[in-house]
């Protein structure tokens, strides 16, 4: 089996697990929605400040929900030593990583499909730029969270104090991704007369490439240890 076939097999397994454990999906989604509500209370709801910050709130809600989703995606593997079984299969570790990272990206994209319209509605924002660009920012930004997040979740799932460790390791790492995603999304929402959004898309693409290739290389070492 080629790397691609192996990756797709792991991805299929993960998506199937997500599908069968819908309670988990709902819980993470509700958590994301709750954080959005909290942001709107903290920022005073509708009004110019809420509109200006809508892009930032969306990404913070996604980031906070992602730590739960990522930790959860490896908790199910560590439980009953499922990960040991996966490693014993004749599958390349990189395929395991890419499959799981794609699965997490897909899961978070599904979250964002609900959270993004809710954010726009809650804070009275409008999409002045193109929807295609908004989708591109969501895909690339979420890939930037899920890429390093999958590797660190694989590490912290087997450490003591994992609930503290994952955000501690992940948050500083994804700051460049967060800055690019928030700036780009805000441009799409508020209009982009200078055409700066494409630069932020390029920044996201560069970081995605960096993180996904570095983490793909290192993942084998992590699951072997």
């Amino acid at each position, binding site marked *: 089996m080629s790397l691609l076939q192996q990756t797709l097999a792991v991805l299929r397994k993960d998506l199937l697990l997500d599908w069968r454990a819908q309670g988990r999906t709902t819980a993470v989604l509700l958590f994301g929605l709750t954080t959005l509500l909290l942001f709107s209370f903290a920022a005073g709801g509708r009004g110019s400040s809420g509109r200006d910050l809508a892009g930032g709130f969306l990404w913070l809600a996604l980031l906070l929900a992602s730590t739960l989703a990522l930790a959860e995606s490896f908790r199910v593997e560590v439980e009953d030593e499922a990960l040991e079984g996966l490693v014993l299969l004749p599958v390349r570790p990189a395929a395991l990583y890419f499959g799981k990272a794609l699965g997490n990206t897909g899961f978070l994209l599904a979250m964002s499909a609900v959270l993004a319209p809710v954010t726009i509605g809650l804070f009275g924002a409008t999409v002045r730029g193109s929807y295609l660009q908004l989708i591109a920012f969501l895909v690339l930004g979420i890939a930037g969270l899920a890429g390093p997040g999958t590797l660190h979740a694989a590490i912290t799932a087997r450490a003591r104090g*994992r609930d503290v460790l994952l955000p501690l390791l992940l948050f500083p790492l994804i*700051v460049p991704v967060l800055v690019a995603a928030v700036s780009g999304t805000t441009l799409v929402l508020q209009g982009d007369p200078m055409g700066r959004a494409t630069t932020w898309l390029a920044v996201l693409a560069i970081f995605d490439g960096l993180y996904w290739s570095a983490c793909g290389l290192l993942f084998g*070492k992590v699951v072997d240890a």
Partner: protein
Amino acid sequence: MSAAYLSLLGVLIPLLALAGLGLLASKFKAWGSRQEAALLAIALLCLVTGLTAGLFATPPETKMREVMRILYVHVPTAWNALVFATVALIAAIGSLSNKRRSWDATNTAAIEVGLVFVVMLLIQGSIWGKATWDSFWEWDPRLTTTAIMGVSFAGVLSLRSFADGGDRKRVWTAVASIIAYIDVPIVYFVVDLAPGIHQERSSPGTVSDEFHWPLRAVAFGLLFLGSWLVLKRGRLELLTTEAEAEAPAADGPALVAGGE
């Protein structure tokens, strides 16, 4: 521009070579206490000469006057923070590829010393910022990325403290160090990519000739001092991991039957 880059490479490459040769090739146990004492003595000599020259022998700067003298500790601290982060990266790659405990010890010690330098850097920067910008902290890209670098090094160390078992400790520290290193080139190049309130990178091309040699002396002083700390800390870490590996399994019976 290119001249500035070349002269900067002229500083960085010898620094890296020294740090690399001195530390990475070292087997910690091969260093005698006399050699270590000599390293510390050279470090202190460099620091005392460099700082004395910086404080008393060199002229003040035209705009910032005497306040600028903090440059002589701030810039070398920044250089060395990046150097020790790079030492940690090289040791992490070594530790992943050949599993020697001394690479792991170097990796951990270099991350720790790097973190100390980053914290020193932020404190010095705050003092300088208060004097020239009238605020301890600005959300400038250089400052922000440096703070992120410090937090990610601290993350690596706390991950290490939460790992059970020698091999996990080694692998996780190395992997987290490599991933955390992605921020280091950003810290270095951010002044070109996203210029903010922080001044441009200091190098022989951007700093008056009179300021060069105290800067170099302090830079080498901090390099030797940091190397000495890495040696001490690395040996301690090596002994700790060896002792943990040799200790009897904790879940076995405490009193074993047998004997005479």
